[in-house]
């Protein structure tokens, strides 16, 4: 699972910044989403109460996680939903392949699922001769171009309509060129309706799984999730093991805060509760429903009391919508399934803190993500924790790759830093030099060179505050 080379967020981000179209697309979209979310929470007290409640519900679920998963499995079994467990993505892919092959399924139509992205399920199935077609409009758009999602809620947010118009006219049979959004949507509808009709199986993610009733909850606007889970004879749902909650009542506030935080909607078009396959006397609905529960590193994250908060995430995307870095570089620069702030803490924990050291540092720690997160995940604190893990192997944690991001030069720099700053006399000498000769430092010196890419070189004052206070003679205690 360890990547060979370090992945450089800095380089990818720098490249993304050179694309003015991309920057404009994201800025416009994020400004809109921020304003829409804000309008959904006119009363700060309600917002805070709802966040506290949601956080408590997610924390409770995690505290009882093994019990809830067992209860979910039992409830599902009672309802006729078959539950499967996968430790790794590879296992999950094989499981799904097995389920499909057992039914002789050749085509799979997919509702939106980030876990299936995590598994790279589409590529895997294609390699086994099974067509996996994305049906969420955004996912469909990026699948046509062989791209990955640039946002967890709005996967095609990096594209504008001219780009989509060109793409449709080239890649959809008999499609004419149009920039009219309604016409573009109609084209996709036509193609995908036929696919729903023909598909041998449907796949979906899970927003919340209810242990007590054995219910899979799906939040969506388009209806493709319902199509994928109700029309084909076989439905396979995939979820990360953290998605379970105890009761359906607990889902209500989570759902309320999810749609508001994500897209600034009070409610989604559909909130679909699936508690079983086609029942006695029912005329439609799948004959079989399977649920695949994926670990993929989550149980390791779970083992750490601080890092466990990462698993509270309900994948609303608000952290990326409000992130000043994400807004400027977009989702692809992260080279990760989950971009933005949540991706910055999740990806290194899954792939290793050493290989993702650059990503962990790609944050100004401004705190906007933690401020809006509906389940109060302290993302900046976790980032700092991961920075420690990346450079210290003696933390006694379960973090992958701990200590592997350490470099001799950084080590040396911090030692020197502390060596001077814990000795006021030395600091006094250093500032004396800085105030007298700081001007003379070349703008091309390492680090200063990075600073002066966009700014003038900072010049120390002629006399420091301490020096002036000393001259005043009143400073001594």
């Amino acid at each position: 699972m360890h990547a060979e080379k370090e992945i450089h967020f800095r380089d990818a981000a720098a490249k993304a910044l050179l694309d003015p179209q991309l920057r404009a697309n994201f800025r416009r979209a994020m400004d809109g989403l921020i304003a829409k979310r804000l309008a959904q929470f006119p009363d700060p007290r309600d917002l805070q109460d709802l966040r506290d409640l949601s956080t408590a519900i997610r924390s409770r679920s995690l505290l009882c996680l093994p019990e809830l998963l067992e209860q979910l499995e039992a409830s599902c079994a009672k309802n006729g939903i078959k539950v499967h467990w996968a430790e790794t993505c590879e296992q999950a892919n094989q499981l799904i392949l097995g389920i499909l092959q057992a039914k002789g399924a050749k085509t799979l139509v997919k509702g939106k699922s980030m876990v299936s992205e995590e598994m790279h399920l589409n590529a895997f199935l294609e390699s086994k001769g099974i067509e996996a077609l994305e049906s969420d409009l955004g996912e469909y758009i990026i699948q046509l171009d062989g791209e990955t999602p640039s946002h967890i809620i709005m996967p095609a947010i990096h594209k504008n309509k001219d780009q989509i118009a060109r793409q449709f006219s080239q890649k959809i049979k008999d499609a004419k060129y149009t920039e009219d959004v309604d016409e573009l949507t109609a084209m996709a509808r036509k193609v995908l309706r036929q696919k729903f009709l023909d598909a041998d199986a449907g796949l979906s993610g899970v927003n919340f799984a209810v242990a007590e009733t054995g219910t899979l909850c799906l939040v969506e606007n388009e209806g493709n999730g319902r199509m994928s889970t109700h029309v084909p004879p076989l439905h396979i749902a995939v979820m990360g093991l953290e998605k379970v909650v105890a009761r359906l009542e607990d889902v209500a506030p989570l759902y309320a805060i999810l749609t508001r935080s994500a897209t600034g909607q009070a409610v989604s078009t559909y909130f679909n509760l699936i508690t079983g396959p086609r029942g006695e006397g029912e005329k439609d609905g799948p004959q079989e429903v399977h649920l695949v529960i994926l670990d993929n590193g989550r149980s390791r994250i779970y083992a750490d009391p601080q890092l466990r908060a990462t698993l509270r995430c309900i994948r609303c995307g608000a952290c990326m919508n409000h992130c000043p870095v994400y807004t400027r570089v977009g989702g692809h620069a992260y080279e990760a399934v989950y971009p933005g702030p949540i991706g910055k803490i999740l990806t290194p924990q899954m792939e290793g803190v050493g290989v993702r050291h650059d990503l962990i540092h790609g944050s100004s720690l401004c705190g906007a993500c933690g401020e809006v997160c509906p389940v109060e995940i302290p993302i900046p604190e976790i980032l700092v924790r991961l920075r420690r893990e990346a450079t210290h192997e003696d933390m006694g944690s379960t973090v992958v790759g701990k200590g592997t991001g350490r470099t001799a030069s950084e080590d040396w720099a911090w030692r020197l830093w502390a060596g001077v700053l814990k000795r006021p006399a030395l600091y006094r000498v250093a500032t004396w030099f800085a105030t007298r000769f700081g001007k003379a430092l070349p703008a091309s010196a390492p680090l200063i060179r990075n600073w002066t890419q966009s700014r003038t070189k900072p010049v120390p004052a002629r006399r420091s505050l301490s020096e002036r206070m000393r001259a005043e003679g009143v400073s001594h205690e």
Partner: protein
Amino acid sequence: MNGTKPKKVYFYGTCLVDLFFPDAGMAGIQLLRRAGVEVVFPEGQTCCGQPAFNCGYWEEARDVARTQVALFPEDLPVILPSGSCAGMMKVHYPELFHGQPDEAKVRAFSARVYELTQFLVDVLDVKLQDLGEPVKVTWHSSCHAVRDLGLKGEPQALIGQLSNVELAPLAREYECCGFGGTFSVRHPEVSGAMVADKIADATATGASVVLSTDGGCLMNVNGALEAKSSKLKVQHIAEFLWERTRAR
């Protein structure tokens, strides 16, 4: 908090103010003194330790933090002219010293920490009289002042007391200016894009001065403005308040 106004406080300059904005530090001290408070400025101040803390070098951060805490033994408020350093000392020191033998001592220290405008408004309830020429300014709120420290409009309230000052709202006021300490040199491209947008928003307000309470933000925004030879200036809020209200 009101009612028992302290007679004596400590002042912690912070490394950036010490070295780059000493006038802001002096102004903060003057504002406190004028409010009838005796200001003690202990010798031996260096840095709160935030850069090492944020980068994950907690032993080094603790070494430095310990020497700083030791400078403030008396049970007096500790006032900082910086949101992020105050946030570090107030909110993050308890994390940094969690489980350390001197945790209790550090926690007691953290409880005494205030950012300057917070102290001027919430504790001292100062009243300002504007003696300056009419001017239009805009306000950049420091991320850590708002999100770590929980500032709730204290700086704006102080600016609001000045009759000749027009406060122009800054678009995306709560968005980070891109400084982020070592972030600015580890990810100079993104950081640069952020500060470029910040100065564009600030310029669009038509103000002649951008005010802030954070040395890092000030240095960052100032550097970017200078690089563009902009006429727009930055100033620490303490210096601005003091200049406009002091008897000449």
